[in-house]
């Protein structure tokens, strides 16, 4: 094909070509980085919390009456809730996965203040915890009822048993995580705890934390002034049970407030709302941007065709077929797009490095670049094919008829 003359004709008319190439370059930069962010968010959102999310909800009970007996009330509440038909199990817990608020500690394999601790999310539960979560126990055993004690808000001592997630065990015992069962880990620098079991997955409450898979279960019920109950229902029973449980608890003791009731599905929705909205906005931006760029190419190519009507007629008179004319515009556009994508690839990488530096985004997958090049070629091709077809329909007689 006639690359040479097309290129030379283009350099006589640089500006239009440069403008399209720049548009393509920016579009590609935005597109790749946006898709990169979308992918990353989608991956984060796809991580399982480990919970039977569809059938869980939770609420908080806060006593205020002078004669409110917290310990007695918690035991009574749990007994009543567990007895309800449709309830699979229930547990008092300090924090909810995905909710954003919780408690973290450091665990180490050696005692002492200088040992490097591994951050871990702490969940205080009783022996019903694992069943209420719906998580799978992969090694060791569950807490026994006799393991479970009471914890005051300002207590600093820890019970001597714990259950870890596999991810936490892997972090502490990278060589053989399963061997963690029976080992001793240290909390608060020096307090020993024996790992009695491992559960498969249980996310920490903070979904943005790099150690989100690291959690530990501690066998204690809490006297913190407010008690939160996590309740697992039979499939389909959650929505009817939510108001029922709320009412039952409120009615059973007028000296307290029942509040913050929420299903785990809603918690997930809220937890990832920012991410989901971000991905949606990015998709809209990429969509509109591609459309704007494509329409821009259509507009500029149409002008080019109009401006060159006479020359197209002349070429036709000199023997160019319709296909030749069409090809001329397609090749010209292909060359411009190619300049654009080369520049775009460079800009993409630079912008991504900036994002990685300033916002600690992971670097992008290099395969996005060739994929985006193909997309931009396709967009350019589609955009220019209309004007190119119009150009090919310019009658050859234009050469003799236009003054």
């Amino acid at each position: 094909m006639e690359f040479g003359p097309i290129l030379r004709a283009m350099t006589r008319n640089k500006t239009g070509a440069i403008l399209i190439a720049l548009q393509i370059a920016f579009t590609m930069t935005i597109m790749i980085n946006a898709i990169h962010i979308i992918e990353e968010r989608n991956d984060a959102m796809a991580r399982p919390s480990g919970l039977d999310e569809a059938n869980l909800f939770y609420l908080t009970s806060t006593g205020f009456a002078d004669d409110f007996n917290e310990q007695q009330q918690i035991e009574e509440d749990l007994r009543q809730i567990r007895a309800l038909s449709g309830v699979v199990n229930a547990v008092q817990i300090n924090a909810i996965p995905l909710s954003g608020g919780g408690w973290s500690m450091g665990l180490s394999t050696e005692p002492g203040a200088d040992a490097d601790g591994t951050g871990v999310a702490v969940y205080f539960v009783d022996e019903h915890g694992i069943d209420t979560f719906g998580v799978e126990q992969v090694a060791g055993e569950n807490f026994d009822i006799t393991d479970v004690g009471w914890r005051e808000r300002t207590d600093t001592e820890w019970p001597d048993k714990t259950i870890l997630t596999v991810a936490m065990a892997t972090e502490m015992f990278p060589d053989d995580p399963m061997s963690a069962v029976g080992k001793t880990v240290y909390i608060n620098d020096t307090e020993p705890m024996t790992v009695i079991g491992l559960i498969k997955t249980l996310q920490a409450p903070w979904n943005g934390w790099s150690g989100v898979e690291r959690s530990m279960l501690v066998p204690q019920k809490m006297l913190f002034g407010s008690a939160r109950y996590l309740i697992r229902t039979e499939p389909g029973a959650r929505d009817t049970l939510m108001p029922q449980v709320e009412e039952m608890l409120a009615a059973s003791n007028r000296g307290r407030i029942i509040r913050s009731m929420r299903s785990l599905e809603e918690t997930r929705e809220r937890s990832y709302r920012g991410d989901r909205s971000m991905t949606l906005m990015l998709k809209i931006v990429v969509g509109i941007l591609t459309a704007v760029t494509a329409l821009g190419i259509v507009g500029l190519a149409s002008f080019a065709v109009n401006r060159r009507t006479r020359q197209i007629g002349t070429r036709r008179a000199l023997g160019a077929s319709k296909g030749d004319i069409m090809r001329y515009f397609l090749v010209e556009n292909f060359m411009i797009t190619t300049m654009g994508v080369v520049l775009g690839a460079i800009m993409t990488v630079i912008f991504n490095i900036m994002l990685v530096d300033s916002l600690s985004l992971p670097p992008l997958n290099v395969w996005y670049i060739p994929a985006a090049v193909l997309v931009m070629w396709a967009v350019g091709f589609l955009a220019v094919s209309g004007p190119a077809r119009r150009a090919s329909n310019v009658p050859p007689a234009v050469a003799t008829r236009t003054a």
Partner: protein
Amino acid sequence: MLSMQQIAKVYRTDTVETHALRELTLTVDEGDFVAVTGPSGSGKTTFLNIAGLLETFSSGTYMLDGRDVSNLNDSARSKLRNEKIGFIFQSFNLIPDLNIFDNVDVPLRYRGFKSAERKARIEKYLDVVGLSGRMKHLPSQLSGGQQQRVAIARALAGEPRFLLADEPTGNLDSAMARSVMGLLKEINEEGTTIVMVTHDPTLANEAKTNIHLKDGVVSETASISQLGNGKQNAA
């Protein structure tokens, strides 16, 4: 040989039908140099466009080199134009974005010649028209006469059998017109058949044959060599 039998051309717009050619019959022999004259609107350009396969016609038969071209499709017509016909336009129609070399190159590209062959031809015919020193110039950097000579080089570079020219000297002064006419005559001597539309009776008289069109039909044909008198005017 170019032969038309009862060619008619009707232009239809929303409201008007224009009969640009009515049952036009004529023959142009191999090696002839035909000058077509006639009043404005008589159908000269239309005839040339049809002869050069730029436009289709409404009825009649047209044989080009013994081949019926009435029903050829667009790309076959393009190919014929490219191989057999060279065009020279009144307003030159050089492509402003391309330099002289690339302008002459245009039909050769479509012909699919190898680059060495194209280069040789371009240089040869730019030399023929006396512009071999201007290959890197843009059309806008040349005078009208020079531009028309580039157009002639472009028409010749494909070494066509027929050269069709629509008022090739219409935009030139008389001295320039003479020199272009001289060039055309030389080309005709070499064997290329030429059909030229002109308003200039003096130039028409220098052709071998004159055809006069009026209202879309041939009103008179005069073969100047037969009459043996270059001064005879067909009008």
